[in-house]
């Protein structure tokens, strides 16, 4: 498994933890998992973008 694929898998695991923890009422665990997922997503964003030049950050649609 490539490191990038593994990072995506980690992100899915953390987001699954968020939804399941909310479902059983474990809100603190859900919040921790959400922060971990956000950090992972930021790492993926940074790894995929390199040093952006002006105009490189234009999106096709608003997020």
């Amino acid at each position, binding site marked *: *498994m490539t490191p990038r694929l593994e990072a995506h*898998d980690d992100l899915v695991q953390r*987001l*699954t*933890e968020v939804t*399941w923890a909310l*479902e*059983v009422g*474990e809100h603190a665990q859900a919040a921790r*998992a959400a922060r971990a997922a956000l950090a992972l997503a930021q790492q993926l964003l940074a790894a995929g973008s390199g040093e952006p030049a002006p105009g490189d950050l234009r999106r096709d649609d608003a997020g």
Partner: protein
Amino acid sequence: MHAPRRRPITGAMACAAAPAEIRLFVCDDAVELRALLRLALESEEGVSVVGEAGSGEGLTEAVLAAGANVVLLDLSMPGVDGLEALPPLRAAAPGLAIVVLSGYERERMEARTLALGADRYLEKHASLEQVRLTVHQVAAERTAP
């Protein structure tokens, strides 16, 4: 450490055909997800988690030793992954109910895992209630004459 606040998991599904006891084995490398599955599924009488593993390595032996009748199996794991672990598990335990629970999209992996011996494929964005219902369904199907 605080006691977990359990929200009762309810469902209207009748499980008359299910075995008297569901003995579940959870194989997933994410320890937090295993704990949440245990918390949710064991809240119901007649369901117990009899074993856990974080890899597919030695899974068949562990499942047989635990006397499980249902297995929840992740695909991406260190050591031996779910695609590798599934065929020997099915060969060793033809009557075992196996549910693959994976982060991969259904369209990409469902047919492949069913061909390797799984009974059901669930994506990880399934709710715990969906997991619970699926566990009951496959247990009932495998028990039916």
